Structures are given as C-alpha cells and as structure tokens.
C-alpha cells in the first residue's frame, strides 16, 4: 500500500503525458470523422511522419552544426512547426488522392482505401529512410536542455520533456478550441460536420473545408509525433500502429466527432494505461504486469462500447439519412 502511494505522483505524471499525446492524435481522428464519417486509418502514419520530420530536422541541424548554437526553444519551435506543416500537407494530399475520389460511395470502400494508404505510407517511409540514411530506425539527437529534470517533491521528479509535452499540448488544445469555436473557418468546419448539403447551400465550400479539416488534424498528429519522438527517442515507420489504435480508442471513448470528447477520452486512456502499467503487477502480486496495459485499454474500449454505445460525452455526427 505504501509503495502504491509512493509511486502515485509519478504514475499520474506519466498518465497525463501519455494522455495529452493520445488526445492530440485522437483529435485528428475525431475531426475527420466529424466531417466525413469515416475512420482515417492512415492518421497513425501521419503521426509517424511528424515524428520522422522532427528527427530529420534535428539531424540536419546537427550536421550543420546549429544544434549547439541556437537557443533550444528556437530549435524546438523550428522542429515543431516543420513537422506540423509537413504532416498537415501530407494529410491534405492523402485526402485528395486516396479519399476524395471515393466520396459518396460505400463507407467500407473509403476505409479499405485508408488502410491501403496506411500501408503505403509505412513502407514508403521505410524505403525513403533506407535510401537516405541506410536505416529506418532513427534516434532523436539528445538536447541537453530537454534532458534536465525539475525536482518538485521527494517522490516526484519532472523531466523537462514531460513539461514540454504538457505545455505544448495545452497551448495547442486551447488554440484549437478558439479556432473551432470562435473563427469563421471553425464555424465552417462545424457546419460541414453537422450537415454538408445545407452547409454547401449556405455558401460553405465543402471540399475546401474537408481539406482544411485534414490539414488541422494532420498538423495535430504531426505535433503528437514530434512530442512522442522527443519523449521516447526511438522512432521507426511502424511505431504508429499502436498509438494510432489507442488514440482512436480514445476518440471513441469520448464520443466520436466530439472535440472535447477526444481530449477527455485521450486523457482517460492515458491515465488508465499508466495505472495499469504500474499497478497491475502490484495488484496481482506480479502475476500480470505492465505488458497487459494494451489488453486493459482494448477491454475498456469494448466494455464502453457495449454499455455506452455513443461514448462518454456522446457522438457529434449527423443523423444518417434514411
């Protein structure tokens, strides 16, 4: 029991960091689901792309000798902006090539196409990195600034990396909230999510709004990718699958199409996973350990869907027309 209390702050911190990452990725799923009603299966690859852009920018800066000269915050800003922009455009391109030709058809067709796009991007990234760097397992170069820790209490040491994740994610989520609720473009996105036909009659350019949604979702995924890379250091083209699945779980947990729901769901899933990872072995005397955290996450998804089919905060998708 004492041990359980002692590690509690650390577990909470881990859960919050993980939760913010899931929330950022989940937003990409949920926003796209809101406007198009389909699972953008390739979103996990957009997330990985963000991580790879991040590591590439850092490696390029390193080889040019700027990594030691520039202020760490400028470096971080550069990395984050680069990966958000590239991931955003990649998501837009994906929509244009693989999804738009299929609009209006059965949803299964678009989902299969998304799965195809996901596979294509995984191996495409692998091919590119193999040709370019001779390996597709890349390590983030360490930044001294990020390796520091801030001791907060006797049993809680906060690494700067975690602070970075929390601060960036909070700022982005606040920005997204303002964007979606207070700007004209945000209103357009909400209008298309509610009813694309009526929105189009009101003069909303539906296709452009969908592209914009993909851009925003992709940029958030790219940001999550960079933060993931910085936090866990190692990336490869196939790392996206599990976080992507979890993030989708988070989006469903909160109620798909529902933007605050994705944030809540992500945070819940992150905390749940951190608790499972740390307390499962304590609770079962070591019989079941941290390796069951994925099982717990998916079981929770299945249970939630059985008992609350529309997620915790309810879906926000249009009523399907009969």
């Amino acid at each position: 029991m004492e041990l359980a209390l002692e590690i509690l702050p650390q577990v909470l911190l881990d859960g919050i960091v993980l939760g913010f990452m899931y929330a950022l990725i989940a937003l990409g799923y949920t926003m796209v689901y809101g406007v198009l009603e389909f699972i953008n299966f390739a979103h996990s690859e957009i997330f990985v792309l963000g991580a790879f852009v991040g590591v590439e920018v850092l490696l390029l800066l390193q080889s040019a000798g700027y990594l030691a000269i520039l202020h760490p915050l400028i470096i971080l800003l550069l990395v984050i902006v680069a990966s958000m922009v590239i991931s955003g455009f990649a998501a837009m391109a994906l929509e244009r090539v693989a999804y738009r030709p299929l609009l209006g058809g059965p949803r299964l067709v678009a989902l299969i196409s998304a799965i195809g796009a996901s596979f294509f991007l995984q191996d495409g990234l692998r091919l590119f990195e193999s040709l370019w760097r001779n390996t597709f397992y890349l390590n983030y170069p360490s930044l001294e600034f990020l390796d520091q820790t801030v001791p907060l209490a006797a049993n809680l040491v906060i690494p700067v990396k975690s602070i970075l994740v929390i601060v960036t994610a909070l700022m982005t989520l606040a920005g997204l909230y303002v964007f979606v609720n207070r700007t004209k473009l945000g209103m357009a996105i909400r209008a298309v999510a509610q009813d694309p036909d009526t929105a189009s009659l009101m003069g909303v350019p539906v296709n452009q709004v969908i592209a914009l949604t993909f851009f925003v979702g992709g940029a958030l995924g790219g940001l999550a990718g960079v933060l993931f890379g910085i936090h866990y250091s190692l990336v490869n083209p196939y790392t996206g699958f599990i976080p992507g699945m979890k993030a989708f779980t988070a989006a469903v947990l909160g109620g798909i199409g529902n933007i605050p729901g994705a944030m809540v769901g992500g945070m819940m899933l992150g905390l749940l996973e951190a608790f499972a990872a740390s307390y499962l072995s304590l609770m079962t005397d070591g019989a079941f350990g941290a390796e069951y955290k994925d099982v717990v996450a998916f079981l929770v998804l299945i249970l939630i869907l059985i008992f609350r089919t529309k997620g915790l905060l309810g879906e926000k998708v249009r009523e399907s027309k009969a």
Partner: protein
Amino acid sequence: MNSKLATLGLCAYIAVSCLVAFFFPQSVLAFLSVEASLLLLYYVAAPRRVKIFLGALVLVVLLPVLGSVNGYYLEVAIQIGIYVALALGLNIVVGFVGLLNLGFVAFYAIDAYLWAIFGSPQANAFIPGGLFPLSPNWFFVFLLLSIVIGALTGALLGLPVLRLRGDYLAIVTLGFAEVVRALVNNLDKPVNLTNGPRGISPISKPPLFFQPLLEFFGLHVTEAKLYPLYFYFLILVLVCTIILVTRRLENSRIGRAWKAIREDEIAAAAMGVPVVRMKLLGFAVGASFASAVGVLFAAKQVFINPESFTFMESIGVLAMVILGGMGSIPGAILGATGVTILNLQLLKGMSLWLNGLRQSGAELTIPLLGSYSLSQLPAQFEPAKYERMVFGLILILMMIFRPQGVLPPTRERKQ
C-alpha cells in the same frame, strides 16, 4: 462447336504449361502459367462436367506431380489453400453479412494454439502427468473440435458487439484480435500456457494412417516427401468442403437472410429476418472455417509463435476478399490465390531478378541522361521487403477504379 474448341485449347494449354513447369522446375513463370490454367478454366465456356474434370485433374494429379519435382510448388499451393479457406470464411462475414471484421485472424490464432498446446509437450507445463503431446490421432478430433470452438468464440465475440455500427464493429474486432495476440504473447506466466514470444514446437503432425496401404502397394515414400503431399491433400479436402458448405449456404434461406441484412438491415428486420441471430450465425460460420484452418496451419508449421497472427494477417485476408470481389466465392478464391502468389512468388522473384541485375553490373543507357551502372542500384531496394507498399497501392487503386473487386458476385454483375 465453339465450346469444344475452347475445351481443346484449354487442354492443350494445361498440357504445355505442365510440361514446361516439369522440365524447368525453377521457372516461376512456368508455375504461374499452371496456376493460371485454373483461372482460364473458370472463364472458358465448357460444359460443367468437363470443367470439374479438368479442374480435378490439375488439382489432384498434375499439381502434386509437379510438386514432387519442385517442393516449393507444393509449399506455395498449401499456403494458397490456407489463405483461400481463410478468405472464404471472412467472405461470409464481410461479403455476405456485410460486417467489417478487422480481427479475423484471432479465430485462426486461437485454434492454431489449441492444437499447438495439446499437440506438443507444452501442455505438460500446466497439466501434470506427462500426458502430452497427444498422439497424432487426436489431430482429427481437434480438427472437428476446432470447428465447434471457433463457432463458439465467434458467437461469444459477436454477442456483445453486434449491436454496434459498422466502423465501431471494425475497431472492436481489431481490439479483440490485439487482445488475443497480447494474451498469447504474454501467457507464459504466471502459468506457462503459450510459451510467450518464443512460440511452441514441435507440434505433432497428423497421423499417417494410410502408410500401411502404401506399403501394401509397394510404394516406399519417405516421410519428408510424404508430408507435403499429405498436407496438400488435407487442405484441398478442407477447401473443397468449405466451398461446398459456402455454396449451399449462399443459396439457402440463411444466405438470403444474410444478404438482406447486408443490403438494408431495417428492411430485413421488417421482413421478419431475425437480424441478430443471423449475424451471430455469420460470425460463427466464418470463425469456424478460420479455426479449422488454424489447426491445420499449426500442424503444418510444426512451430508457431504470435508473430504469425498479426494485424497484417487480418488485413491481408481482408484484402484478398475485397480484391477478389466481396460476397463472391470465385472472387475470394481468386483474391487469396493472387495475393499469395504476389507475396510468395512475384515479389520474391522480382527481388531475385533485381539482385541478378545488380550483380551482373550491366550498364543501362538512358538517352540524354547518360549511362547508369546497375550495380549502383541501391541494395535497400528489394521488392520482397516492401510488400505492404505494393499492397497498399493495389488497395487504393482498386478502391478507386474497381471497388467491387475482380470477380464480383454474379447477381450484382447482372444489374
């Protein structure tokens, strides 16, 4: 007259391609043309009896003979058989009932492990008495048992999740498959059920009950030669049974109910189709096919570990069903065959060919751009390693240009 000509032509084609494959056992193209003869058989306008006879001739006589010349052919044929059976099972769930199942491989995994655990010394780890491995004769008992267990697991998963809408169902089935894989991967403690990531081996093979018969006829075949043939015929029988069952189901009351649910669930319910029960039945039937193949797979591989049951496998089978044509039996067969050949033969063949080019160091002269030595071709560029990329591209292109698949079901084709 016309059909007789076509039949003659086909016979000639089969004879020539088999002869070529017999005398050039290393040629991938020769074997591909033998495989293509079955596809031609499907298209040719010949009487049904002739078609069945020729098909049986190729599958029962010619392929095994070729397979004893080059063992790899039999291996490919067995793999194709396994995937055809899986694709036919998934075809029922996705194609007939219209439920997207992204975790189909879970059923396959459960029963592969069932035989693996009891057909190897693995079970001794948790059942005392040193009873295991069970004698090979139990294989057939487990084959039958797996059908029941598969149907039960299918129904058990289906029961809670079938109320969910399409996309949610897809994700839940995916989650289920990941849970199964994680369990298989981690249940080496506290009790060593599955031996974890190290996998289980050696798994017993099915009994050679007919060996005395062969001896009686004076045929002395070594076990190493006999087993591939044995597995080939086992999988052939299994696939034929599955095709027969699926065909009977498709045109029955149940099959029509499934299709009604696929087209419009509400209308089907209004017409008195017991929607939930029919969906459950679809789940159970599909799962039982996969389970039976799982047992066979475990016995054939001798060694299995969780790596064989990844998400990639589920998607691979789904791609086979979709590429071939959802809801169509010939489509599922063609899709499974095509994708397996692509993976096992075409991509590998291309890799070998590129390697050959690289080693030959030939110069490639492109006008205006100068010459380029092929030995500089990057070594990372190996098609066999990028099957997902090829796969992904095929999936996207198919969805854009021919979403109904190569061989869509006939009734839809007429419309």
